[in-house]
């Protein structure tokens, strides 16, 4: 069973049931459909980060590097005024991001803890500057996506990405697949070694496993999926700009993943929705949303250590 905890088996179906039917009760271009789509896409990003941070033990503040690459790769590779195939470009973008992760990971994964953190941050900052200072990629303003891709497979097309409701379902479908994918991988033989490597790296190496190879593989997987999220985000709003690469993006995602429950994977959904929900709610009340959030984070570290999923699990698991 890929969902081992009772809490997961309750919360996950609940979420997807609600998410599946919600748009049917709202008009297609309602503000909420768009807003929830964005949160779903963000959840994919946060989920891939939770995998890296919570399950593999790679604490990175540079995950936004791949978020940005997802969007920018699409703009770089696709012709400006022509509709390309979504699935083909997903393959391109994920493959190239995986390659970037492979190369950067090979360089930096031999460093430990704090160094790794600093270097990942510096790398995403470097990409920020690369695109910010670039002339051909729009510099600080970024670039627009004028034509969204089409989604045909063997000539059969059933999703129109210009329709917010269709885009919503694509995002939801992607989120579901991402969740299931991570759960399957973590339950696999590969996942067993990853779990062991996180709990006791010395012993795992003493047992003869090449931990570096396992971590690198995980880094590639997590980064490729982070890029996919960035790709979707870019498509939804029709633009890319260097703000995709900032530490604020990485930091916020980290906060969301821990708010939801580090390492739980499904917690990423809880954390992202809670954070965004709170922000939406409070931004209308006060300008000082950031102050509230910052204090909440500090209190959370001191008091509520296992996130929302942890709290729910305490209630629901016997």
């Amino acid at each position, binding site marked *: 069973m890929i969902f081992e905890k009772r809490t997961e088996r309750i919360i996950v179906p609940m979420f997807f049931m609600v998410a599946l039917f919600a748009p049917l009760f709202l008009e297609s271009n309602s503000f909420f459909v768009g807003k929830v789509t964005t949160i779903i896409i963000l959840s994919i990003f946060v989920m891939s980060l939770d995998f890296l941070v919570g399950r593999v033990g790679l604490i990175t503040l540079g995950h936004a590097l791949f978020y940005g690459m997802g969007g920018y790769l699409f703009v770089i590779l696709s012709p400006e005024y022509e509709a390309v195939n979504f699935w083909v470009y997903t393959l391109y973008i994920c493959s190239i991001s995986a390659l970037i992760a492979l190369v950067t990971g090979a360089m930096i994964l031999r460093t430990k803890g704090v160094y790794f953190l600093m270097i990942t941050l510096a790398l995403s900052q470097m990409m920020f500057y690369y695109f910010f200072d670039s002339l051909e990629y729009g510099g600080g303003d970024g670039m627009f996506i004028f034509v969204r891709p089409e989604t045909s497979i063997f000539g059969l097309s059933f999703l129109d990405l210009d329709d917010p409701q269709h885009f919503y379902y694509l995002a939801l479908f992607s989120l579901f697949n991402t969740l299931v994918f991570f759960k*399957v*991988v973590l*339950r*696999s*033989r*590969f*996942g*067993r*070694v990853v*779990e*062991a490597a996180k*709990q*006791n790296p*010395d*012993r*795992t*190496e*003493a*047992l*003869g*496993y*090449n931990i570096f190879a396992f971590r690198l*593989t995980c880094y590639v997987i997590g980064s490729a999926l982070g890029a996919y999220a960035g790709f979707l985000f870019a498509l939804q709003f029709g633009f890319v700009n260097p703000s995709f690469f900032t530490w604020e993006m990485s930091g916020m995602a980290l906060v969301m993943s821990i708010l939801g429950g580090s390492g739980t994977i499904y917690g990423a959904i809880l954390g992202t929705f809670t954070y965004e929900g709170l922000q939406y709610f409070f931004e209308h009340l006060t300008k000082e949303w950031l102050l509230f959030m910052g204090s909440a984070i500090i209190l959370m570290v001191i008091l509520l250590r296992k996130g929302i999923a942890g709290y729910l699990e305490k209630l629901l698991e016997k």
Partner: protein
Amino acid sequence: MINDIVLETEALSKHWGGIKAVDEVSLQFRDRLLHGVVGPNGAGKSTLLNMLCGTLKPTSGCVFHKGQRIDALKPWKFVQRGIGRSFQKTNIYPEMTCLENCAISAQRRFGGNFNLFVSRHSNKLVRKAAEQALAQVGLEDRTHAIAAEISYGEQRQLEIAMVLAIDPCILLLDEPMAGMGHDESLRIIELLKELKKTYCIVLVEHDMDAIFELSDQLTVLDNGRHLITSSVDEVRADPRVKDAYLGAEDEEEQTA
């Protein structure tokens, strides 16, 4: 021959700057015998063990496994050859079940470790190997217990089970009875008596009663140098050994 040489060292040395942790040690470890290794603190026992399992590379000298020279290989190649090592400080996976602990040990040799999709529980060979290892040390009824929740003595047994799960040809045991009470130690002694019928065992220990009872051959190290390797009685009678342990043995006799 019944007692083939499994592991052998030839003039094995490890120097750290001016300090000779292990100095020209030549030893032979034979199958189905238990080789005790003792010596006062700082004698080089741990360093020797680390070189035997590949985590430390010698400054000079060689390590041979079944006639082949292996000292320059990576640690995981040692494991692949069946050279298994347990740790003095309990080094298990606390949040996993005992079965999972042994399963991780066992999984490596069955391959498919980069398989991202097949469930870890589906491989019967791995499961059987893990269960067998647990049974060998007498932990069958703890199969599904979380490792952090079993007693200290049982955790030490689990340490040994994890080594057994790799299907070893030699067990390098680093103070398996460290921190144990009398009864728990007896259990381990019985276990090792059983195991030495099948495996070659190298036992580093401070518990002298256990060493004298279990060792077929006893090696004494002092300041990195190999003092003597012989039967327990001959070693105990040797005056050089008494010198090396000067004071320590008197203490032992007083507390015995």
